[in-house]
């Protein structure tokens, strides 16, 4: 199943999509979230979720600068412990990261893929999974996050 959506301004935003398992559902989202997908049913306390957001990076920063700003913002918002970080320019500018954080009394694993579009847009897929569910949920959530692609901009 493909989950798809666009950013807050349909006239400008890129349209992005991800591959999700067939037993997931896509929820419409208001605001800056392009779309959200998650399993229809989940036995744990926190339903694994993948959200996709679009952001305008008008200054067209370098990948290093973009990563620096993103990490600073993430730490300022969530704190947490950096588990994984990868920056690459092939086949397109991309930042992957994973964090272990705690929020609302729950220990969470956050995985993200940021794709930087040449015209200055960034699109971000964020997977959120409780640590307790991570061993079982990781393959599907990682696959969904890593399938992020822009289909129209």
């Amino acid at each position, binding site marked *: 199943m493909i989950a798809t959506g666009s950013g807050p301004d349909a006239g400008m935003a890129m349209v992005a999509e991800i591959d999700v398992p067939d037993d997931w559902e896509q929820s419409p989202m208001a605001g800056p979230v392009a779309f959200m997908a998650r399993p229809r049913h989940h036995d744990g306390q926190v339903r694994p979720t993948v959200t996709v957001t679009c952001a305008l990076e008008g200054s067209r920063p370098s990948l290093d600068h973009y990563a620096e700003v993103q990490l600073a913002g993430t730490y300022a918002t969530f704190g*947490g*412990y*950096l*588990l*994984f*970080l*990868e920056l690459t320019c092939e086949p397109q500018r991309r930042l992957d*990261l*994973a964090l*272990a954080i*705690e929020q609302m*009394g*729950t*220990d969470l*694993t956050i*995985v993200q893929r940021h794709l930087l579009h040449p015209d200055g847009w960034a699109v971000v897929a964020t997977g959120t999974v*409780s*640590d*307790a569910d*991570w*061993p079982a949920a*990781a393959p599907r959530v*990682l696959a969904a996050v890593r399938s992020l692609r822009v289909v129209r901009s």
Partner: protein
Amino acid sequence: MTSAVVVDAGIGRLVLTRRQLGALADLASGRTASPELIAGLEAGHALVDGAVHPLLRPVLRTLASIQGRGALRQWRAGVQPVAEILVGAGGVVVLPAGPDQDEPQELRWHPRPTAVARMVAELLDLPADDGLPPFDDTPRPWAELVEAATQTGGAVGLADLRWADHFGDVLTSVLVMAWRSGGGMAEVQPAEVTTGGAERSGTTVRCLRRHPLEVWTVLTTLAARLT
């Protein structure tokens, strides 16, 4: 050696020895402790008017309800004490300074048992970058890894995480890791059939490259194993 107790509510810093913690646990459960220990605990404000300082109560609650237990040994230049990780219904307590009863322990306490994966990850302080590990998968003596990790100024890390799902169980290796400080890690496994884990002296081991998230997955199973 006896040390001064530190109970600093302002920054949440707790420093006690294992002997002092044991005395506090005895007092909290209605038993007695030696006058010398009590005097030291009172001087450091761990005991206030005969009551355990509020900052220490959740630590004692955790220690009174231990379910799982871990020991993290790291090989580095110089002495590197084994850190003990204790997980109970009251949360997670880390005693980082080894088994000596009189060694000051910079206590870490977290209120949720499920935080154990993150706490162990922070203790390990593994690199976040993927890459080539310091050793390929060719069988080699364990001593070669220890030698690389204990070189002064070296860039190789080596750690053994042992775990027991129940307090009285024997600790067994759940993860032996070797890594470059700049990124690239491997799980160390016995290259021959042995008992007792990869770190036995004289054992031949094999280093299998692992992605940082594969290691994280192993750590997140620790809390799940407690249930």
